[in-house]
């Protein structure tokens, strides 16, 4: 079925670069990764060295600090290399490298220690940012943006500007190894206003509130998440809750001077960053090892060439996404359809859906519509798509066929409905027109007969009208017949019939028919005649100030073609869609294997063209 009379699929529905052609990391990226890795190792070593140089270093603190530099860098690089959660990976790298500054606080040197303490203020907001942007590396919701901004502002406004005004930094610092005997603030200006005694606790309380809000935002995300998303979010929420609790204990211990409390909280906070990095790594590896098991299993189940519903279930099980759907590319429908040929709208990023196109070279085959979480695991999607390619391609053919059949049925339905409407119209016209006239005629005859004796004058008058009444009835019937199938078309063919239509058209119309007396089948001539007539009527009704209409009918190749052009206002083909008139024309031509093209430009005019091949 020739479908060129359908508008082409919008660009966003055409598949993007298929998975198999995803580019590997560029060579220059490799150099950056190596450099970053090297830097991470260097900084971790330096922080270790710094810690042990002070003599009374606590080994545990030193090692955990070094790990807090090295592990986020290592895991972040791994994520970057694997192209999975790339942005988040880069964030981890940045956090690891920046954390080096915090480890300076093990020094006994006042300046270095102070630098470390100053940097340490940023740890809190950074950690909150990391939690809120997992796993994409972006702050997705307004609430998360507010919380992150609030935490950052708390430090920017209530911590850093106050540094010159405080003699000593707050005690019980988790990431250093001094407790109450820490060096003084090297950047102290000399005067400490009274408000400082209130400021530090207030700051801690405010920051704690923002952390609490951050946990609430995460909990909200969890509640709104799909089953698949929840699996990745739950560990993050747990770690964030642990941070929250540990920080609370630290702040309380700090204010009450309770060393046991602060000590316990400190160990937890020290270990948190390395543990979080490990958690992220385990999560990534989990997906990879899962793929190693699930893909062979998938291939086994695909060997039986499952039917579309079974294929969907198999892929859904493999990807652990109950919401997974498969859409097949059907040129017949100009877009994606379900296995039954029903059109599906495929729009990525709507309601947390991701779309993965599947293609062979440049030929689109299908699109997998899945939970967005899977976007972070392209290698898994790639493997599943590659394994199922053969089966998907086969189903695509069926889906395309089903879409064609559906469209054909719909077109047939419309044609039958149009035929019914036509019959009703004829019956109505016959009844209201010719039949009424004949009934009136009959009544008049009876009347004349009855009053002929008693009122001859009136009877004679009535009798005289009878001839005219019959003529009018005849005209009515003739007009109706012309509307059904014009006698001119039967006898003289398209040139004569179209000339008659043109002569009675509201807009000046020229007809150029180059068929040179050649006749075509009744269906073809009828289709061309009625399409031209409909197009002409449209030009008169919707053409605005059309000055001229031209109808051209000519043989084209091994078929018959027509063009109806007007110079009116034009109309927006996309927006008006197919009005009933255009659909009728399209159906008529389609039923004969022909095509319809509509081209309209505002202010220029409209051209309606059709072509019918000869059998």
């Amino acid at each position, binding site marked *: 079925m020739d479908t060129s009379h359908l508008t082409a699929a919008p660009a966003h529905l055409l598949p993007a670069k298929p998975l198999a052609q995803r580019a590997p990391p560029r060579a220059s990226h490799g150099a950056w990764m190596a450099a970053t890795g090297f830097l991470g190792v260097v900084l971790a070593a330096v922080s270790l060295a710094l810690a042990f140089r002070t003599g009374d270093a606590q080994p545990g603190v030193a090692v955990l600090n070094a790990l807090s530099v090295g592990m986020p860098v290592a895991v972040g690089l791994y994520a970057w290399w694997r192209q999975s959660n790339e942005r988040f990976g880069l964030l981890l790298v940045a956090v690891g490298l920046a954390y080096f500054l915090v480890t300076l606080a093990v020094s006994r040197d006042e300046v270095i220690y102070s630098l470390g303490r100053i940097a340490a203020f940023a740890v809190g907001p950074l950690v909150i940012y990391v939690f809120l942007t997992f796993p994409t590396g972006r702050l997705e919701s307004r609430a998360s943006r507010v919380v992150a901004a609030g935490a950052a502002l708390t430090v920017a406004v209530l911590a850093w500007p106050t540094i010159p005004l405080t003699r000593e930094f707050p005690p019980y610092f988790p990431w250093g190894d001094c407790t109450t005997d820490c060096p003084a603030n090297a950047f102290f200006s000399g005067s400490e206003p009274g408000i400082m005694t209130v400021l530090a606790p207030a700051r801690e309380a405010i920051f704690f509130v923002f952390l609490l809000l951050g946990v609430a935002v995460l909990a909200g995300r969890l509640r709104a998440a799909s089953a698949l998303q929840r699996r990745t979010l739950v560990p993050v929420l747990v770690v964030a809750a642990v941070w929250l609790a540990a920080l609370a204990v630290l702040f309380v211990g700090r204010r009450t001077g309770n060393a046991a409390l602060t000590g316990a909280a400190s160990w937890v906070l020290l270990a948190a960053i390395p543990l979080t990095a490990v958690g992220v790594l385990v999560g990534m590896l989990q997906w990879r090892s899962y793929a190693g098991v699930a893909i062979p299993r998938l291939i086994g189940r695909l060997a039986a060439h499952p039917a579309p519903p079974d294929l969907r279930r198999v892929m859904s099980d493999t990807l652990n996404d109950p919401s997974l759907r498969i859409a097949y590319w059907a040129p017949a429908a100009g877009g994606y359809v379900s296995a039954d040929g029903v059109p599906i709208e495929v729009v990525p990023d709507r309601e947390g859906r991701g779309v993965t196109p599947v293609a062979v070279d440049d030929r689109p085959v299908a699109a997998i519509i899945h939970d967005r979480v899977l976007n972070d695991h392209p290698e898994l999607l790639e493997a599943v798509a590659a394994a199922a390619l053969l089966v998907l391609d086969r189903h695509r053919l069926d889906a395309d066929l089903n879409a064609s059949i559906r469209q054909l049925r719909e077109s047939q339905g419309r044609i039958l409905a149009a035929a019914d409407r036509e019959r009703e119209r004829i019956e109505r016209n016959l009844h209201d027109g010719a039949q*009424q006239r004949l*009934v*009136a005629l009959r*009544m008049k005859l*009876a*009347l004349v007969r*009855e009053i002929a004796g008693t*009122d001859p004058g009136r009877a004679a008058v009535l009798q005289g009208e009878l001839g005219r009444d019959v003529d009018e009835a005849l005209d009515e019937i003739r007009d109706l017949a012309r509307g059904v199938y014009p006698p001119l078309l039967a006898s003289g063919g398209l040139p004569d019939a179209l000339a008659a239509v043109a002569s009675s058209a509201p807009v000046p119309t020229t007809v150029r028919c180059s068929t040179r007396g050649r006749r075509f089948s009744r269906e073809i001539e009828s289709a061309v005649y009625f399409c031209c007539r409909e197009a002409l009527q449209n030009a008169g009704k919707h053409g605005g100030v059309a000055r001229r209409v031209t109808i051209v009918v000519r043989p084209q190749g091994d078929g018959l073609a027509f063009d109806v052009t007007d110079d009116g206002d034009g109309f927006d083909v996309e927006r008006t869609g197919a009005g009933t008139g255009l659909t009728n024309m399209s159906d008529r031509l389609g039923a004969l294997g022909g095509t319809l093209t509509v081209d309209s430009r505002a202010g220029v005019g409209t051209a309606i063209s059709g072509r019918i091949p000869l059998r």
Partner: protein
Amino acid sequence: MDDPVAVLTVDDSPSFLRVARQLIAATPGFCSVGEAHSGEDALAAVELLRPDLVLLDVRMPAMDGVETTRHLIKRDPHPIILLVSSDDPEALRDRARRCGAAALVRKQELAPSVLRRLWEDHAGAGAAGSERSM
């Protein structure tokens, strides 16, 4: 009858209205007081013109003759309502009987004598809805 019988003709077909006018004019003792083209217009015309007899076409768009009859009888049982049809009346007879019209007649059979007979049958019988001629 001293006063002529006032007749209101209701039909959406101009052909029938024309010939009905001529028919009523040729029937002694009858005169046409008005014409209406739809059921809606008929309701207003009856209230305004107070006819004695209404010739009412069955097949009309929007409100058809049967429904118009029901409304008319509810408002004012005085005028006698004759339903007319160009189609086969047998199919309509049940509905026509139930709605309260006095009679159902084929348009083709209408003639001065027929009109007079119908009037005498039903005006003499009094209220509309007499079963005799149905």
